């Protein structure tokens, strides 16, 4: 089984979202912190791209910076083009018009993103009244359709409910309904299933996949969970300490991870079906660094099993992976002086 590719006609279309050389720096009391450094990223129509990394790797900051959701202490450099329109440095009115209509967000914790004193129907309808200028009644009618679309049973009753009357999974479905109310071109889902139980998680991922298949929505999924990536992404971008360290088609990345950080993440994830006592989980020693400035070095070097002197004296560029085998539909790139090459994904046993 390979990843479901987006329809052929869409692959060659210009990207809906094109991020060039994006850098984000925060000013703090104790100096500046570099959160994102020189990120290039594009999203084709109908494509699902996953950004994966641990906390502190800059994946959420990248996502928030796309539609100007970061606080004022953030300095954003580079370019974010949504259907050709530049968003970095755009006027607040331009951003406001884009948010919700062309680019929409789903956050991790649906309870804190929903208004507890409004019915969910009103909250979904509000988006439509603002952006589509629908009347109150029309908007509410459309809200019912949207809730049904995201798999909420008896939607006509549910629109009258308040967030606290719904389960976590249902709330997240409401969030998705709000996000897709105006058929955005780009949907950004920041840890959409992290707060949910595994039995509910699969259903939410199905809704996202369904939206892509039916409306051609491009989706950027941000997660620390490789299981989510394996389930839904067409392409994967691995971030570490603010930089992209590897990107590839999803099957490719899981079969032949090139960067040692990507390989480490893969073997640190517990996988059901393997038995205790026979081996241990692989650990990645150390922590994601907090950087004042991005050094001219590989920032993973001090945690890397393959690091040499070169790694701490020059930053490796993101280049095509040195692989003999065919790369597949998507380019496979890695930023590492000592990529893993044709070695397969490490098994847990290797590290026992």
């Amino acid at each position: 089984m390979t990843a479901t590719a987006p329809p052929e006609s869409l692959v060659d279309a210009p990207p809906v979202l094109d991020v060039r050389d994006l850098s984000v720096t925060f000013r703090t009391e104790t100096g500046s912190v570099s959160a994102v450094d020189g990120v290039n990223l594009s999203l084709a129509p109908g494509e699902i791209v996953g950004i994966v990394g641990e906390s502190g790797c800059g994946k959420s900051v990248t996502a928030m910076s796309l539609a100007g959701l970061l606080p004022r202490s953030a300095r954003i450099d580079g370019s974010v083009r949504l259907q050709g329109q530049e968003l970095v440095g755009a006027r607040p009115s331009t951003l406001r018009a884009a948010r919700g209509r062309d680019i929409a967000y789903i956050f991790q914790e649906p309870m804190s993103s929903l208004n507890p004193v409004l019915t969910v129907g009103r909250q979904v309808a509000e988006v439509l009244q603002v952006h589509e200028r629908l009347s109150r009644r029309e908007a509410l009618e459309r809200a019912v359709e949207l809730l049904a679309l995201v798999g909420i049973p008896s939607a006509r009753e549910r629109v009258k409910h308040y967030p606290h009357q719904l389960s976590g999974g249902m709330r997240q479905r409401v969030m998705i309904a709000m996000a897709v109310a105006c058929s955005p071109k780009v949907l950004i889902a920041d840890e959409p299933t992290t707060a949910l139980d595994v039995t509910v998680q699969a259903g939410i991922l199905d809704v996202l996949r369904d939206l892509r298949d039916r409306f051609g929505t491009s989706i950027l999924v941000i997660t620390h969970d490789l299981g989510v990536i394996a389930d839904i992404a067409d392409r994967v971008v691995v971030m570490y300490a603010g930089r992209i360290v590897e990107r590839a088609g999803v099957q490719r990345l899981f079969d032949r991870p090139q960067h040692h950080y990507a390989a480490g993440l893969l073997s640190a994830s517990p996988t059901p079906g393997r038995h205790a006592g026979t081996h241990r989980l692989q650990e990645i020693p150390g922590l994601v660094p907090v950087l004042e400035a991005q050094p001219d070095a590989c920032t993973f070097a001090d945690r890397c099993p393959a690091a040499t002197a070169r790694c701490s004296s020059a930053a490796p560029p993101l280049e095509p992976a040195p692989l003999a085998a065919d790369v597949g539909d998507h380019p496979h790139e890695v930023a590492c002086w000592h990529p893993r090459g044709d070695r397969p994904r490490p098994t847990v046993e290797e590290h026992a």
Partner: protein
Amino acid sequence: MNEVRDEESRANEVAAADTDTVLELEDLAMHFGPVRAVDGVSLRIRRGQVTALVGESGSGKSTVGRCIVRLVEPTGGAVRLGGTDITHLSRSQMRRHRREVSIVFQDPAGSLDPRMLVGDIVAEPLQLQGVRLSRKERAERVSDGLRRVGLRPEVARRYPHELSGGQRQRVSIARALMSEPTLLVADEPTSALDVSVQAAVLNLLADLQRDIGFACLFITHDLSAVEYLADDIAVMYLGQLVEQGSRAEIFATPRHPYTQALLAAAPVADPGRQRSRTRVLLGDDLPSAMDPPSGCRFHTRCPIAVARCAEEVPELRRSGGASVACHFVHEDGSAPDIRHDQPATTGSPA
């Protein structure tokens, strides 16, 4: 004559079982007003054994843990710790038994006092037990405790906020093990941590458990994490156990549809396997613990439920190497698997 000997050996067996049992829950119930968070859970953990208690949020698994360390007083049933009934002991009576059981919580940022030095946090259990130590002895015990969990002794002079999430969880574990407990309750100890750190903490717990030999109740929602640690697995749904058995048994032949659904839902970090497997979708809503469904509590979400499931409560019956509470499990231990079988072909309940 024979009868007498039989009785004698039976008495001996009972005694042996008693000294071997670290924790016994008998029909444990914890009702918060109308909310029946825990509703009749029986469980036994033997010396040096790791039992995983698995379930979704709202299943009551954490409340079981809180009853065992007596953060709350159960409203029914019994908690026996090393043969002593601690169900209704007062705070002062409980103090003598505190050394036998410790707990590690999910969020180390919330369970460590931010104004205390790590050294004082780790030494506190000794102090509370009235262990008299010189300053030097105390410092040594703290250093040993920190070293045991892979931290440098210098960490004792730091505050919790100066440590990373993984280091803080190590401090929690060091404190929990200070009194050399026979039972450690670990309540989602790795859920708040990143993947690579989670791996390190799971490995640490497994190593410590093997070396020191304490028994452990590992409470988690993540079945894939317990496969590395647990000897036994107990699956909880809406306040009750639905299936219980050895790790091998539960992973190889889960018999309860809920256990099967949990196993099927745990995401696999492999695109091929993840996308090709049969999806088992349960309805989103966990029913309210204030008004649990009639009959089998799982029947409202169960893909193969029949009329009988709504009427008759299935008992937890021994079946093969496990205990299962489901009408569909046959006498010979066979059961339909919702991951492979279509609901139409599963037939009627046994």
